[in-house]
């Protein structure tokens, strides 16, 4: 952590020194969102000793800097521009070991015309409507975002299974068709995060092991390929997206006892993500929705092995393995809202997520459901005050969850 803090200082110093030595102007801007939450978690967790579910209730309140992003962009001339995005989350502090710092994007963009743009470097690829901008809090009415996009839920939900994480090269643009615009994009990017070597001593991807590559390098040959096509007409925007990559299932725990893990392997399993997105606005009304399915292409041997590993571990309880008997996943959300006088907005949202590899939230159990209601006020263009209530629920043989989150936030752009 201290090493990372020093690296951060060097990176920022290098960035600001180098920007001052070039003739092009550099535009530096950013935003932050500070949040206050009251969290109430009611869980019923199966206990082998009690031979039944035991209730665990937790309450907490938190005041924290959810996120701060610093951007720098420079017009390099002749259609080229550069863009850097640094992200700090959860009260980031290197000396207190809080939160995280992330170089999220750094790329050069070239625009020949509206029909042809290129991006090369490190960036969030286009997938559905929200993937590119899921962490741009001033753009979003939410405090806690729809399930797969909410970073604080990534302890339970693995985002790399649902969303392409990093693009390296992307070609995209918009073609005019009368009053409508046809959007297209295609990208190639890194394999998922779990294929990337890191410096966590307890991780199998430890670069101190000479058989693994340098920290930050991938140790898999597989890459992510994907794209989106869409249509914009008047207040309507819709599109479909797809990606192909491989899931890292080389090592996963099949034991219910986290303190005594038992690891199994299915190798690298090809997967295809399909997505659809819709955005519609009419006067003050707005509707946003996304759907995604993640489908795996297992070989016969992998399929049989998975079903064996997913066999019940507790006699009498049918779904009591730590993993489910499938790998496929599904997610969707719908948000309906209204803007009053450009300064006020209200919305409600429903979300659903199912992961057949996770026995708590697989489709047979009804998945994980979320409900949101919220609103906000913009006293000026650059400041938004937000309120939100969110409920999350799932029910399974192993555990039930009923979680309420009350949140207030201020989102500021500068």
């Amino acid at each position, binding site marked *: 952590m201290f090493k990372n803090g020093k690296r951060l200082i060097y990176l920022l110093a290098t960035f600001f020194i180098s920007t001052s030595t070039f003739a092009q102007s550099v535009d530096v801007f950013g935003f932050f969102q500070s949040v206050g939450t009251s969290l109430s978690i009611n869980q019923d967790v199966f206990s082998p000793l009690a031979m039944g579910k035991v209730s665990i209730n937790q309450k907490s309140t938190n005041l924290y800097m959810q996120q701060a992003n610093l951007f720098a962009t420079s017009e390099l*001339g002749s*259609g080229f521009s550069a863009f850097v995005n640094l992200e700090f989350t959860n009260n980031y502090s290197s000396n207190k070991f809080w939160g995280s710092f992330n170089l999220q994007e750094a790329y050069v963009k070239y*625009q020949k015309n509206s029909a042809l743009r290129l991006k090369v470097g490190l960036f969030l690829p286009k997938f559905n409507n929200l993937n590119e901008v899921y962490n741009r809090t001033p753009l979003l009415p939410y405090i806690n975002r729809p399930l797969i996009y909410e970073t604080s839920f990534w302890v339970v939900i693995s985002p790399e299974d649902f969303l392409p994480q990093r693009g390296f090269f992307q070609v995209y643009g918009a073609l*005019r068709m009368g009053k409508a615009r046809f959007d297209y994009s295609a990208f190639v990017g890194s394999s998922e995060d779990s294929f990337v070597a890191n410096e966590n001593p307890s991780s199998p991807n430890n670069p101190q092991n000479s058989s693994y590559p340098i920290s930050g390098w991938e140790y898999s040959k597989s890459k992510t390929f994907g794209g989106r096509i869409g249509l914009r007409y008047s207040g309507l925007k819709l599109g479909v997206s797809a990606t192909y990559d491989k899931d890292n299932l080389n090592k996963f725990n099949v034991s219910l006892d986290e303190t005594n893990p038992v690891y199994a392997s299915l190798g690298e399993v090809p997967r295809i993500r399909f997505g659809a997105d819709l955005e519609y*606005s009419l006067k003050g009304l707005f509707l946003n929705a996304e759907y995604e399915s993640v489908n795996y292409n297992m070989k016969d041997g992998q399929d049989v092995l998975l079903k064996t590993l997913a066999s019940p571990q507790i006699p009498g309880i049918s779904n009591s393995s730590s993993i489910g008997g499938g790998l496929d996943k599904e997610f969707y959300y719908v948000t309906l809202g209204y803007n009053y006088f450009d300064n006020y907005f209200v919305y409600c949202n429903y979300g659903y997520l199912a992961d057949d590899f996770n026995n708590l939230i697989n489709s047979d159990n009804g998945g994980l459901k979320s409900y949101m209601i919220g609103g906000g006020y913009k006293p000026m263009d650059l400041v938004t005050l937000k309120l939100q209530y969110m409920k999350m629920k799932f029910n399974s043989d192993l555990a039930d969850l009923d979680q309420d989150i009350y949140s207030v936030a201020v989102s500021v752009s500068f």
Partner: protein
Amino acid sequence: MKINKLLVILTFFFILKVSNAQVAIIANKSVKETGITSDLTKDIYTLDQQRWSNGDDIKVYDIKANNSSKETFYKFIGETPLKLKKIWLRAKLSGEGTPPKALATDNDVLNAVATTSGAIGYIDASKVTKKVKVLKTIK
């Protein structure tokens, strides 16, 4: 009585002039285009189109105040102020473009467009001077 009639007539013509104010889409003289459509204007102001046909970067100007020129211009491109603000903010935060620079008055826009290569803006048509070229007059 005659003075009252005169005042009424003058008031009538004043109202007529204000409600029929035309808006001119203006560009810097370095811009090669001689005319512009509503579709291209919309593409420029929604940051889909960022370069002129000769490859020069487009510098876009907007008016800060909600005056009649702005209302007429936004109606011409078929967008609302709220929608455009969202488009500009998304473009800015995702690195896809720089929002138009909003200036206080029509004269500020006129001077900025006149002195900035590749610039485009809009002003009340009655304020146009020979410092800029007119791509379109919106009636």
